[in-house]
C-alpha cells in the first residue's frame, strides 16, 4: 500500500513538472489552431468546428514562409554536414595520432571557449565583409562550420576507441584515410549523432548572426524571420503562433530520430 502511494505521488510530481515544461507549447499549438481568437482570451471557448489550419496556410501565403524554411534547411544542412566532417577530421589526430605539440594545440583550442561570442561577432563581421561574403549564405555558414564544442566531443569519442583497431587496419595495409572512414567513424556513431543534433539545433535556432550578415530579409532563416514577423505582425497572434509551431517541428523531428543514441553519445563524450 505504502509503495503504491509513493508511486502515485512520484507520477503526480512528474506530470506536474511536465505541464510546466511542455504546457506553454501545447497552449501555443492550441492557439495556432484557433483562428480569430486572441491569445489573451484564454481559457478559450473551444468548439470542434472552430479548429482550422488557416493560420498555417496564412503564413505560407502572406509571409512567404516556404522561402524561409528553404533558407533554414540550406544553412542548417550545410552547417551540420561541415561540422560533422571537419570536427571529426580535426579531433581524430588530437585524440589518436602522434605528433609534436599535440597537447599544447588542444589546450589552446579549448581555452578559446571563454571568449564571449558577441565579442567575436564584431571582428567576424569585419572579416566577412573583407572576404566579400556578406549578405550570402556562405557568410552565415562559414564562421560556425566547425565549433570547438564539437571538436571536443569528437575527441572524447575517439579517445575511447582502443589503439588496436587502428593497428589491425594498418596490418591489413589500409591507408590512414581508409582506417579513419571505414573503421573508426562507424564506432563513434553515438557521438556523431550528438554533434548532428546539437549543431542542427544551434544553426536552426540561430537568429543573431544571420541577421547581422544578411542584408536581404528574403535570405533570412526561420528564427530571424520569426523575430521580424513578431515585430511586424504582432497584432496577428495566429500567424506568429503558427510560424512558431512550424519552426519547432523540424528540431523535434531530428531529436526523436537521434534520441536513442543520445544518452549513449553524451555519456561517451563525458568519459575520460
Amino acid at each position, binding site marked *: 500500500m505504502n509503495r503504491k502511494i509513493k508511486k502515485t505521488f512520484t507520477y503526480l510530481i512528474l506530470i506536474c513538472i511536465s505541464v510546466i515544461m511542455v504546457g506553454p507549447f501545447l497552449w501555443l499549438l492550441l492557439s495556432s489552431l484557433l483562428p480569430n481568437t486572441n491569445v489573451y482570451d484564454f481559457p478559450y471557448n473551444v468548439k470542434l468546428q472552430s479548429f482550422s489550419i488557416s493560420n498555417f496556410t496564412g503564413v505560407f501565403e502572406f509571409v512567404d514562409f516556404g522561402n524561409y524554411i528553404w533558407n533554414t534547411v540550406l544553412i542548417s544542412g550545410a552547417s551540420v554536414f561541415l561540422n560533422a566532417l571537419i570536427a571529426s577530421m580535426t579531433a581524430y589526430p588530437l585524440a589518436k595520432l602522434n605528433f609534436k605539440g599535440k597537447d599544447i594545440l588542444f589546450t589552446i583550442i579549448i581555452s578559446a571557449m571563454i571568449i564571449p561570442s558577441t565579442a567575436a561577432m564584431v571582428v567576424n563581421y569585419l572579416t566577412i565583409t573583407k572576404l566579400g561574403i556578406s549578405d550570402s549564405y556562405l557568410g552565415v555558414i562559414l564562421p560556425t562550420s566547425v565549433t570547438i564544442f564539437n571538436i571536443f566531443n569528437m575527441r572524447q569519442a575517439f579517445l575511447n576507441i582502443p589503439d588496436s583497431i587502428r593497428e589491425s587496419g594498418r596490418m591489413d595495409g589500409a591507408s590512414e584515410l581508409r582506417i579513419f572512414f571505414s573503421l573508426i567513424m562507424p564506432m563513434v556513431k553515438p557521438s556523431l549523432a550528438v554533434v548532428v543534433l546539437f549543431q542542427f*539545433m544551434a544553426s536552426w535556432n540561430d537568429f543573431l548572426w544571420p541577421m547581422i550578415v544578411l542584408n536581404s530579409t528574403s535570405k533570412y532563416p526561420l528564427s530571424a524571420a520569426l523575430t521580424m514577423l513578431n515585430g511586424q505582425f504582432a497584432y496577428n497572434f495566429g500567424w506568429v503562433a503558427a510560424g512558431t509551431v512550424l519552426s519547432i517541428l523540424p528540431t523535434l523531428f531530428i531529436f526523436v530520430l537521434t534520441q536513442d543514441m543520445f544518452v549513449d553519445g553524451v555519456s561517451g563524450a563525458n568519459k575520460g
Partner: protein
Amino acid sequence: MEKMKNKKKHVKSETAYAWVTMLPGLLILAVFVFWPLIYSIPLAFTDYSVVGDMHFVGMKNFRKAFSDSDFIAALKNSIQYVIIVPIIQLISLAFAVALNQKMRGVKVFRTLFYFPVITSTVAVSIVWSWLLSSGGLINKILLGTNILSEKISWLSNDQTALWVLMFITTWKGVGYYMVIYLAGLQSVPGELTEAARIDRASSIQIFFKILIPMLKPQVVMCSLMSVMSAIKVFDEPFVLTKGGPGNSTLTASLYIYQKGFQNFDFGYAAALSLILSVIILFFSLFVNLYNRKK
C-alpha cells in the same frame, strides 16, 4: 637500421597526415575564433568605427568603460544572472535522479523535460512574452488562485523583468544538463544506492552524500558551462526586453552588441569584450578552484 629508418619515416608521415587532416578545422578556428581575440586587443586601444580613420587612443576606452554607468549596470545584471547556476544544476540533478529509475513511461518524461532545450530562444520568447503579459495566462492563474491581488506586467516592470528572464533561462536549460547527468548516472553502480537504502539512508542523504560526489566530474563541467553561458547571456534579453525597462535587463553581451552594431563603435565594443572575457576567465577559475578544494 632499415627498421629504424622505416619507423622514422612513419612518424614523419603521421605528423604530416595529422596536420593535413586538421588543416581545414584549424584554418576556420584561426580566422573566426582566434583572430577576433587577437585583433580585438589592438582594436580596444583605438576609436575604430565604420566611418573615419582609426586613431590610437591609449587607455581611453577602458577608462570610459569603468565610468560608463550603463556598462556597470550591464555587468551587475550579468553577474546577478550567475545566481541561476546552482539552481539549474540542483534541479537538473534532481530530474536526472528521478528519471534514472526503472519505471514505466520514464522515457516519455525525459523527452518532455528536454523539450524546451530543442526549441529556439525566439520561439520560447514569443510564447513566454504572451504568457507573461499583463493580460496573459500567468496573471490570470495567479489572480484566480488569489496569489496576486493585482496584475503584474512581468517583463515591463523593472523589479521583476530580470528575474523573469532568469526563470526562462532556467526553465529552458535544465533539460540540457539533465541529459548529461543522466549519462553520468549510468556509471554509478546500482548496488551503491541499494546498500545505502538498506542502511536506512534517506533519499535526500543518498542524493547529497552518494550521487553528487559520484557525479563530480559532470557537476564540475556543467557548472563551468553554466557559469560561462550565464555571464554571456544575450538571447533572452535581446528578444524579450531589449535591455529594458530602463537598464534593468541590460546584460554585458547585449551592451557590447549595441555598442558594436548599433553605434558602430568597434573600438569601444572591443574594449568591453576584453573586460568581459577577463571576468569570465576569473569566474571559470573560481569554479575550478572551488571544486578542487571540495
